[in-house]
């Protein structure tokens, strides 16, 4: 099925633009098309609108030594295929912007401008994104000649926020240091009375240079780094990284390892969803519910620790398999803990749903429109809460998820009806999380019949230089994509990470419009976005 889909798309694109495409080839489930720089916006537009593909990510890499220019890969996702539209900038330092066709590309293009110094011609927003205003203009960290340890001098400059003016409009600046125990980011509210007229987010305070750092690391070190992209998504991100390397090495991991990865990925999803639900309860001023849910979260984290040696599941994966085994004794413990958690969780959710003040607080708060969620290219719960049915576990099965995808026609229809009903407010997101926790519990129970083969398989000593592959996983926030290109001597030539948060952050600016300022924490928590996963 995979190949026919892929071939069909290749044919369809070729029939329209055959003169503009220099080369077409296939790399696992990726369709690669080398196209001319000038024709790229039209081809992207065609793939986006006519094929109805989603923009998954835009990857830039400095390949001046190999191909005489920067390579930019526009990655689209359609069914179970990833379509790569590849251009080279040649001698120039500019590329045509595609945001008039695909709004979701806006942030990627600004990111490329900051990190590579390539100008997206036609993008109206040229403000700095990753490197804040205090960075000198001529610093482009992801260019190959830039040294990792360079300490750039600070310069004095001011960031231009969007100004909303008019009678009675006030501005509230919030952050980067917030009131709660959360990560840093700046929010600029423009308000009229209590109503939010405009919100502008300014992130990348936690930018740690992960992509550049990975280029100086061994593969097993980069694995540890991938776990620390966002501490609460460690299994999802490291699985995605491992899958990319495993694809490059053309190895298949043992069935036991696949199932163990699945179990840990779902354990991660549960503890985070329970934590987010607790947060929603706190922000809706119902601390009792939060306390109950936090107890469950702590229990799950203690289970994590017993199984993996880390309360937030660091050190589960290795390239070619997993590091932690699940013994028969562990299985028993998992089942016992999960049945307790499941019982308690059901009671707490019944309690929460019976509190009209709690439900009223969520209903209609932070509502997102389907069109906006689609245009911004959202993933995960943020997309599913408006009925955009994306889930990497089903769309691109990895690990042992293919075992859990069988649905009867009746179930499929019910699922579709449910998707249509979703309203995109905080309540929808609350309900989806509750639902997903229950699904995850089932998946774990079904995955515990482990095969008797090994925990990992050997990885070839030397990987072929300049081979690349895309790895992915569905974290509790949504699809996370990791693209790796191997360099000489098993080094990493380019490691591009795009977590779900990067896609979902822009939506918050739309979700809070016309809500009041005290709604913001609740909306923010219900979207559950990672700062570190976004800023890298």
């Amino acid at each position, binding site marked *: 099925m995979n190949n026919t889909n892929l071939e069909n798309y290749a044919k369809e694109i070729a029939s329209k633009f055959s003169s503009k495409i220099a080369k077409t080839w296939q790399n696992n489930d990726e369709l690669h098309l080398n196209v001319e720089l000038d024709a790229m916006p039209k081809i992207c537009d065609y793939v986006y609108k006519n094929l109805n593909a989603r923009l998954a990510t835009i990857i830039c890499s400095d390949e001046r030594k190999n191909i005489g220019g920067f390579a930019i890969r526009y990655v689209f996702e359609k069914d179970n295929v990833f379509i790569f539209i590849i251009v080279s900038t040649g001698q120039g330092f500019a590329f045509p912007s595609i945001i008039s066709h695909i709004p979701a590309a806006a942030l990627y293009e600004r990111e490329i401008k900051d990190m590579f110094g390539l100008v997206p011609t036609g993008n109206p927003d040229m403000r700095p994104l990753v*490197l*804040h205003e205090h960075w000198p203009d001529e*610093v482009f*960290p992801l260019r190959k000649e*830039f*040294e*990792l*340890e360079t*300490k*750039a001098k600070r310069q004095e400059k001011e960031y231009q926020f969007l100004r909303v003016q008019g009678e009675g409009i006030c501005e509230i600046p919030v952050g*980067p*240091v917030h*009131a*709660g*125990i959360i*990560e*840093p980011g700046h929010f600029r509210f423009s308000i009229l009375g209590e109503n939010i007229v405009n919100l502008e987010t300014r992130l*990348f*305070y*936690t*930018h*740690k*240079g*992960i992509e*550049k750092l990975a280029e100086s690391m061994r593969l*097993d*070190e980069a694995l*540890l780094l991938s776990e*620390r*992209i*966002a*501490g*609460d998504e*460690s299994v999802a991100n490291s699985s995605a990284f491992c899958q990319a390397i495993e694809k490059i090495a053309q190895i298949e991991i043992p069935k036991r390892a696949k199932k163990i990865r699945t179990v840990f990925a779902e354990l991660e999803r549960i503890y985070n969803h329970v*934590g987010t639900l607790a947060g929603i309860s706190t922000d809706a001023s119902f601390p009792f519910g939060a*306390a*109950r849910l*936090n*107890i469950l979260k*702590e229990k799950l*984290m*203690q289970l994590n*620790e*017993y*199984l*993996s*040696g*880390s*309360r*937030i599941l*660091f*050190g589960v994966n290795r390239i070619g398999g997993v*590091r932690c085994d699940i013994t028969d004794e562990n299985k028993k413990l998992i089942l016992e803990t999960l049945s307790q958690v499941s*019982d*308690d969780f059901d*009671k707490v959710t019944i309690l929460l749903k019976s509190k009209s003040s709690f439900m009223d607080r969520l209903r209609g708060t932070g509502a997102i429109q389907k069109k906006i969620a689609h245009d911004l290219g959202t993933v995960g719960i943020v997309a599913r809460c408006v009925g955009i049915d994306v889930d990497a576990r089903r769309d691109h099965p990895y690990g042992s998820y293919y075992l859990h995808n069988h649905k009867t026609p009746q179930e499929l229809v019910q699922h579709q009806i449910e998707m249509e009903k979703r309203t995109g407010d905080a309540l929808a997101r609350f309900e989806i999380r509750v639902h997903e926790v229950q699904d995850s519990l089932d998946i774990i129970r079904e995955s515990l019949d482990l095969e008797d083969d090994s925990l990992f398989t050997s990885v070839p000593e030397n990987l072929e230089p300049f081979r690349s592959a895309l790895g992915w996983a569905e974290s509790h926030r949504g699809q996370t994509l990791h693209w790796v290109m191997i360099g000489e001597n098993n080094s990493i030539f380019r490691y591009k990470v795009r977590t779900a948060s990067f896609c979902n952050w822009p939506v918050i600016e739309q979700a809070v419009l016309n809500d009041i300022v005290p709604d913001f924490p609740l909306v923010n928590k219900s979207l559950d976005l*990672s*700062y*570190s996963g976004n*800023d890298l």
Partner: protein
Amino acid sequence: MIKATRKGIAGNGIETIKNLTHTLASKNYRGSAIFTAEPTNDQRKTLEEICPTKALFSTKENSVMGLDNGKCITCGYCSEAASKTIEIQNKPSNPVKTKSQMISYSSPQTLFQEKSYEQTGNELKEKIQKMFGRSLAIRQVDAGSCNGCEIEIAALNNPIYDIERFGIHFVASPRHADVLLVTGPASRNMEIALLRTYEATPGPKIVIAVGACACSGGIFGDTYATTGGIDKVVPVDVYIPGCPPRPEVLLQGILLAVNRMKSE
């Protein structure tokens, strides 16, 4: 039936930790690395190479090997490479006042007297009462962490660790704070904000570096985008190693910080 329902919702045997001798870390917990034998010259080389954060190093005399817990992220690569020489134990490494105290050597070392969560908490309560009246106010600042440390700090507020019973609470502004609890390798983009937060905190103030990143830069090291530890930006009173440190260890670290304040 009412009784049963009430139990189901309100109790279920979950209680705040009280058992004085009970240690919370499970036997599998990767708390810290410890030398079990003297590494040979070859092993030293391998270990130095394999450690992703350069926490393992040979001393100048090249006779012993050092382990900087402030850099160690307890990944366990060392114990996989030399299982007879170095081992990952479930005892977490302790918070300390100076960077040099975080380093352990392959030659014999003295063992730290372990205290339970409750004991530590009560000692802290006494100290706080003497110094601040009844409470200690903490402001948490994320200077670029991966969010792992935040999860553990937030866990201090849950009903199981319940840090408020010792008179410690998290406040919303640095102007209300006695203690800054800082995580992350201090990213360049957060440097100014961290400095301003420090300046906004009234004296006497203490700064606690939480986690390997805050102590040394951790896996993120010292690069164009990080400063390699928050002590490059603000003066640090107590270092809490770990990736991330457990909630009990966080509490120990706060206790140590208050001790320090008294001596000044």
